[in-house]
């Protein structure tokens, strides 16, 4: 008997304290054919792109930097490159842009979440992790408005709690989870049958 995964993609937004958080969440994703995972981590514009390489070594899923016009594949985590917005196009390919900063950030979590919400509608999971600003709150609200699933890291477990709190103020979040439960929770979604 085959089952269908109720979601097509996961988007994750993370800022201050992000490396430690991603190191916890991403290696925990082990289901084969995990749906595409798109990540915006705030980084300084000059930072070298060592993050994807570092995470790729630690993860079962393939982790890489997102490229413009790249089609989405299962089993892959795409990280926004420093200094570029990451977006999802109507044909579900990735797109990069250098348009102005949003919430003082490029890449901006809101930009990824808003564009992904329009493309994936209710088949999207949005996750906000640790961070010291409010980027992502509007985007998460957008995901919710389209019927997607919203998840926020429990602020007590976040290195910086402003971002999770801002998200929880903006949306009636579906799940507030401690950091270590987020990976297993996402894994379990992959076996859900509805």
């Amino acid at each position, binding site marked *: 008997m085959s089952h269908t995964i109720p979601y097509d993609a996961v988007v994750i937004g993370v800022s201050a304290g992000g490396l430690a958080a991603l190191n916890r969440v991403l290696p925990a994703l082990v289901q084969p054919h995990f749906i595409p995972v798109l990540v915006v981590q705030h980084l300084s514009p000059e930072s070298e792109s060592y993050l994807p390489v570092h995470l790729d070594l630690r993860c079962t899923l393939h982790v890489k930097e997102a*490229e*413009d*016009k*790249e*089609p989405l594949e299962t089993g892959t985590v795409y990280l926004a*490159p420093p200094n*570029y917005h990451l*977006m*999802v*196009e*109507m*044909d579900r*390919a990735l*797109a*990069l*842009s*250098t*348009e*102005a900063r949003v919430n003082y950030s490029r890449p901006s979590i809101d*930009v990824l979440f808003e*564009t992904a919400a*329009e*493309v994936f509608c209710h088949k999207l999971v949005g996750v906000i992790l640790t961070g010291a600003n409010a980027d992502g709150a509007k985007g998460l609200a957008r995901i919710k408005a389209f019927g997607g699933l919203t998840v926020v890291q429990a602020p007590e477990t976040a290195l910086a709690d402003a971002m999770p709190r801002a998200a929880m103020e903006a949306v009636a979040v579906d799940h507030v989870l401690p950091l270590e439960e987020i990976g297993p929770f996402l894994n379990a979604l992959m076996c859900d049958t509805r």
Partner: protein
Amino acid sequence: MENERLEIHLLLEAIYLKYGYDFRRYAATHTKRRLEHRRKMADFSNFSQMQHRVIHDTDFFETLLLDLSINVTEMFRDPWFYKRVREVVFPYLKTYPFAKIWHAGCSAGQEVYSMGIFLEEEGMGDRVQIYATDFNELILQKAKDGIYSMDLIREYTANYQKAGGRRSFSDYYTADYESVIMKRSLKEKVLFSSHNLVTDGAFGEMNVIFCRNVLIYFNRELQDRVLTLFLDSLCPGGFLCLGSKESLKFSGVAHRLEIVSEREKIYRKKRV
């Protein structure tokens, strides 16, 4: 088709029919975000209302044109790219007694002057003709003027040094209180002209084409069309330099070019 997408489709069609600028095959998500930005700023409740204004108000269209053409640029943007150009493209250029370089989508000219500076440092200033084009007349005028705000110079100077510049960056401009103006000798080598990559044709026999951070705003189909235009404009063995996040990997013409430098996105037209 969902209503909003339909309205955007009609708006872009109206812009094309009325003003000749063709945004119909620009990356859809990006275009929508830019249009939405203007719609909110101008307080229209939907794109059909905005369309009426665009058709009847040329000034409003000019504003929208600026919204749709992202003009962000800088001198020696991605310094490591220019460093690599010096290493791999210059030796090729030096084999020609006279060479032609095209900067497509040159914005306010910073890219053009960056390259001009390096050409001068390599003693090739008199052996090249540089063509610099953009479809936005306003920005093209800025490129011709070559006047930049003093605030930017510190960053530009740092970039110049990181790129491997051999002199003092201040040798290349005259400073005023609030702005700098690029040296006349740099400007004289450049022919600035209006050219739309979507609707205009090929340029002849170029040795090097720079088209950086422009294709990223096109959809795949349009990208392929414009890349074909570049291939038609390049002489065999000529170089094509793209923006650092623009790859040929997902395009339909990848087989016609060889990769010279992966990270720097420097390609070369095969001789077949």
